[in-house]
């Protein structure tokens, strides 16, 4: 364990250092493409939220903020440990810190596992409640019930009126009128504003869960990839491959893991705390 395998830089680099800094620049370019990939979904989030702010509030109240908070703490801790692993590799002179690198990486991977387990419980709860995307949402009547309950809690509104014949007649007229003569429609429904708003909220709930599953799903895939990369780095670290002059894989794997953390830092308040 306490020995190292020295690294020979590739022939087209002057030395290890130049090779490392080139690799790191490449990694940062890749991270930029990752950020842009996620930003598409963040833009979708912004657009749908600003079109249906009431619905967004009600639907996001269906998420469990405790689970979200636990996952935030888990990811921040793992980000810290992976940063310490990089530091251990940076200061590894003759292999005396090999086991420290391995231990820190193992703990980071364990955190990633914990994150996925919490995510599993969250997803299975949402699937059970029918809080899903698109058509799946409408195929689960219990989802509508959950949203009604959410409206009740968020806006302290009585939603029993939702099942009244008056409301259903209004809904039919609303649909039949279309959106062509908007002014007429608005005057007609001025007295039933809460009904119309409630109707929209329940109808559009699937939009929130669509964005929720896409964002957390894409992030979850990144967690799995990050775990695999760190596991590979761990195996190399066990062989004593990383020391003060060569630790590029630890550093780049760490950068990837920090990005996963960065994305979650924004995802957590946006989805769980709005």
């Amino acid at each position: 364990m306490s020995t190292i395998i020295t690294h020979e830089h590739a022939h087209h680099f002057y030395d290890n250092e130049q090779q490392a800094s080139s690799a790191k620049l490449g990694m940062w370019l890749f991270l930029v493409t990752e950020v842009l990939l996620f930003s598409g979904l963040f833009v979708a989030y912004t657009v749908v939220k600003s079109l249906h702010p009431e619905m967004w509030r009600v639907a996001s109240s269906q998420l469990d903020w405790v689970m979200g908070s636990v996952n935030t703490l888990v990811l921040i801790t793992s980000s810290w440990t992976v940063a310490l692993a990089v530091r251990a590799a940076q200061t590894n002179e003759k292999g005396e810190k090999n086991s420290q690198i391995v231990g820190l990486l193992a703990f980071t991977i364990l955190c990633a596992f914990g994150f996925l387990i919490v995510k599993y419980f969250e997803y299975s709860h949402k699937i059970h409640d029918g809080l899903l995307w698109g058509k799946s949402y409408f195929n689960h009547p219990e989802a509508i019930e959950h949203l009604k309950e959410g409206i009740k809690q968020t806006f302290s509104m009585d939603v029993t009126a939702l099942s009244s014949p008056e409301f259903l007649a209004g809904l039919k007229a609303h649909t039949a009128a279309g959106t062509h003569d908007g002014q007429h429609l608005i005057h007609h429904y001025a007295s039933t504003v809460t009904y119309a708003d409630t109707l929209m909220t329940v109808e559009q709930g699937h939009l929130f869960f669509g964005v929720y599953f896409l964002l957390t799903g894409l992030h979850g895939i990144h967690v799995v990839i990050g775990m695999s990369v760190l596991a590979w780095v761990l195996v190399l670290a066990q062989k004593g491959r990383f020391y003060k002059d060569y630790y590029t894989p630890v550093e780049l794997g760490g950068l990837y893991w920090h990005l996963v953390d960065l994305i979650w830092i924004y995802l957590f308040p946006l989805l769980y705390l709005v």
Partner: protein
Amino acid sequence: MSQHDTHHDDHGGHHVTPLWLYHLIFGGLLCLTVITVWIAQFDFGPANTVIAMFVATIKASLVALFFMHLLHDERLNALTFGFGLLFVCLFFLFPLVDIGTRTYIDPIKDNASILKQEKIVKAQEVHAKKHKKALGNLSNLYNRSFMNVAEDEAEAKPVPAATTEPVEGDSTAK
């Protein structure tokens, strides 16, 4: 490596962040997480999202500057990432301009709140009264060209667009 700071040891010119700084940043991130969860319990309206994003940006900056070493790394890495963020801002800008201005064109496109729509329609009515004649002519033209053409043709009666009284309620811009 362009880094030749005073706190350098002989580790090949790489900046090694002291351990206490890592622990401090970790503690800071934990505190900020608690703060953001705590603040979310109060209802400040739209300000909630702004506060949450502000705290998240502080957290993200701590991670990027210290854990990801952007602060002491080669400037080119920070520049690369900065340019990426610039393009993210551009990406956000155009959709936001779009959805932010839709209601001026057509209040019906705004699903946000019926009450809000009513306000906009009332504002448009006031506006329309000021420019009644022009809008009346416009709506006549609009009706003629899209709706009443078949009727007009059947009746074969010329409609003097300029003299027709504007119809109340038609003034809403479509």
